[in-house]
C-alpha cells in the first residue's frame, strides 16, 4: 500500500459548467488497469462529477518491458521478434519499419519481389488492424455484433499470414534484407479471393455500424480534436487524418515501393459533426481499409518471380552512424532512431510508438466528456498498450 498523490491543476472546473452553489462531491474513479474499454493495461484516473469527467490522468507502464534496453543487448536480427510485440496487432508493419531502418543505415538494397511482398503483407496487416479497431470500437459503443463480423474477416487474413509465415500474431516475417521465406504456391490467388470477398463487406459494416443513428449520436461531436491541436500533440495516422490533415507518410515521403501505387488519403470531413470528432477518426479507418485493398491489388499485379532475400550476413554489422526512420503504421508513424557504433547490436534504439504519442492527447480531450465518452474517445484513439509502454 503506497500513497500516491494525485495532483490536479488549480483550474479544474470550466466556467459555467457546474453550478457552484450546489455542493457536489467529486468522485475519483480508477479506470483500469483492468477495464474492458481501456484496450489493455492502461490506467486512467478520472475525476468525475456525476457522469461528467472533469479530469483524466493516464498512468502508463503496466506493460513496460524496456524494449529499448533489450535492443542494446541483442543483435539486429534478434531484435526483429521484439518489434512484433510493440504493436502486436500490426506486427508486419513493425517488422517492416525496423527492417527499413536497418537497411537504410546499412545501405542494403532488397530485391523487388521482397519489396512487393512487404507492401502486400503490411497492407493486409493494416486491414487486420483496422478491422480490430473498428470492431472493438463498436464494442466500446455497446454494439457487440460488428466485432464478431470483423473478426470473421480478420480470420482470413490471419490464415493468409499463417500460410506465409507460420504464425498468426507475431510473424517476424519481414526481416533485414527481405522477407524470411517465399509465400507458398497459390497464396496470391487466395489473397485475391479474400480481397474480392472483403471489399463488399466494408459496405455491410458501414450499414450496420458507421451509419447507425445511435452510433453517430454517440461519436459525432465527441472528443473533437482540431487539426492544430492534433499536430501540436504529435498525433499521426488516422487520428491526425481524422482531424482533417491529409498527411500520410506513404504519400508524402514514400518508403519501400509505396510511391508506385495509386491510392487516396482519406481525411475526416466532419460528416456528422465537427471535423476531428470520434466519428471522423473511426471512419478514416474504414476508408483506409478500402485504400489498402486498392494498394494490395496493385502490388499483387506487380508481384513477379525473383529472389526474396538480399545478401545479408547472418550477423548484421552496421557502420557507425545514426538514422531516424519512420513508417506509416495503422496507428500512426512508427519511428526508429537507430544509433550504431559499428557493432553487431544497436548502440541506442529509440522507438517512437504512435500510440504513445496519440494517447498523450487524452488528458486534453477528456475534460467535460461524459463517462461513456471516455470509452468512445479511447476507442477512437485506438491505442495498443504494447506500443505505449514498449
Amino acid at each position, binding site marked *: 500500500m503506497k*500513497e500516491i498523490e494525485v495532483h490536479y491543476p488549480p483550474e479544474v472546473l470550466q466556467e*459555467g459548467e457546474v*453550478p*457552484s*452553489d450546489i455542493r457536489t*462531491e*467529486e468522485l475519483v474513479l*480508477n479506470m483500469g488497469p483492468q477495464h474492458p474499454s481501456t484496450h489493455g493495461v492502461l490506467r486512467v484516473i478520472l475525476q468525475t462529477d456525476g457522469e461528467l469527467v472533469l479530469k483524466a490522468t493516464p498512468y502508463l507502464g503496466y506493460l513496460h518491458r524496456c524494449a529499448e534496453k533489450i535492443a542494446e543487448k541483442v543483435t539486429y536480427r534478434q531484435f526483429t521478434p521484439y518489434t512484433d510485440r510493440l504493436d502486436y496487432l500490426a506486427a508486419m508493419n513493425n517488422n517492416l519499419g525496423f527492417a527499413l531502418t536497418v537497411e537504410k543505415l546499412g545501405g542494403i538494397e532488397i530485391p523487388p519481389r521482397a519489396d512487393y511482398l512487404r507492401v502486400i503483407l503490411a497492407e493486409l496487416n493494416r486491414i487486420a488492424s483496422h478491422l480490430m479497431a473498428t470492431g472493438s470500437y463498436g464494442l466500446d459503443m455497446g454494439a457487440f455484433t460488428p466485432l464478431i463480423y470483423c473478426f470473421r474477416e480478420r480470420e482470413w487474413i490471419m490464415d493468409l499470414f499463417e500460410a506465409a509465415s507460420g504464425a498468426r500474431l507475431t510473424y517476424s516475417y519481414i526481416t533485414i534484407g527481405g522477407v524470411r521465406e517465399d509465400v507458398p504456391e497459390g497464396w496470391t490467388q487466395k489473397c485475391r479471393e479474400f480481397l474480392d470477398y472483403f471489399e463488399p463487406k466494408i459496405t455491410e459494416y458501414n450499414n450496420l455500424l458507421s451509419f447507425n443513428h445511435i452510433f453517430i449520436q454517440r461519436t459525432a461531436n465527441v472528443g473533437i480534436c482540431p487539426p492544430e491541436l492534433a499536430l501540436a500533440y504529435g498525433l499521426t495516422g488516422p487520428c491526425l487524418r481524422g482531424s482533417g490533415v491529409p498527411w500520410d507518410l506513404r504519400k508524402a515521403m514514400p518508403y519501400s515501393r509505396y510511391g508506385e501505387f495509386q491510392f487516396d488519403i482519406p481525411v475526416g470531413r466532419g460528416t456528422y459533426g465537427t471535423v476531428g470528432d470520434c466519428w471522423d477518426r473511426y471512419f478514416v479507418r474504414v476508408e483506409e481499409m478500402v485504400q489498402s485493398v486498392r494498394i494490395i491489388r496493385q502490388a499483387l499485379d506487380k508481384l513477379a518471380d525473383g529472389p526474396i532475400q538480399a545478401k545479408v550476413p547472418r550477423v548484421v554489422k552496421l557502420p557507425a552512424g545514426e538514422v531516424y526512420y519512420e513508417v506509416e503504421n495503422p496507428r500512426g508513424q512508427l519511428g526508429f532512431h537507430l544509433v550504431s557504433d559499428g557493432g553487431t547490436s544497436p548502440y541506442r534504439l529509440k522507438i517512437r510508438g504512435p500510440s504513445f504519442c496519440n494517447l498523450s492527447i487524452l488528458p486534453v480531450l477528456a475534460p467535460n466528456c461524459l463517462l461513456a465518452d471516455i470509452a468512445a474517445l479511447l476507442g477512437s484513439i485506438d491505442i495498443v498498450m504494447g506500443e505505449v509502454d514498449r
Partner: protein
Amino acid sequence: MLETMIFVLFAGLAVVAGIAILLSTSIVRMAYWLITMLVAVAGLYFLMGAYFLGVMQILVYVGGVAVLLVFGVMLTSRQLAPTLRPGRAEALWLAAVAAVLLVGLVLSILHAHWQPGTIVPANSAAEIGHSLLGEFLGPFELVSVLLLVAMLGAAYLARPKAPTAGPQHIKETTVL
C-alpha cells in the same frame, strides 16, 4: 384467524421497520427500512381490500419516491455513514416532543368511536375515480396545483446559476 395472522405479520413488520429506522446509523439502511415499512403498510391495505390504494402505495411511494430518496441519499454520503445519533441535549428535547405526540395519539385512539365497518367492495378503482372527479374534485385539483407549485419550485432551485466561487483548488489523496 388467518387474517389476524397476516395482520399481525404486516403490522409487526411496519412497527419493527419503524423502530429500525430510528436505530440504524447508516442513512441508506434507514431508507431501506422506510421502504420495508411502506411495503408493510401496503400489505395492510391489501388485507383491508383496498387493492388500488395498496398498489398505488407501492407504485408511487416505493417505486417512485423511495427510489429517488435512496438515490439522493446514495449520492450524498458514501461509505462515511454519518453517525446520526443525537446529542444529549438534543435527545431530551426530541424525547419531549415525541412523548407529547405519543400521548396525543394514544388519547385520540382511546377516545375515537370505533365502528366495525364493511370492507370496500372490490371495484374500488372505479369508485375512487368517481369520487375524485365528482365529490372531491375541488381538493383534488388543489392538490394537483400544489404539486405543480412544488415542481416549479424544484425547477427554480435546480436552475443553473453563474459560477460565484473562483477557481477551485482540488487536491485529493487516493490510497492505492
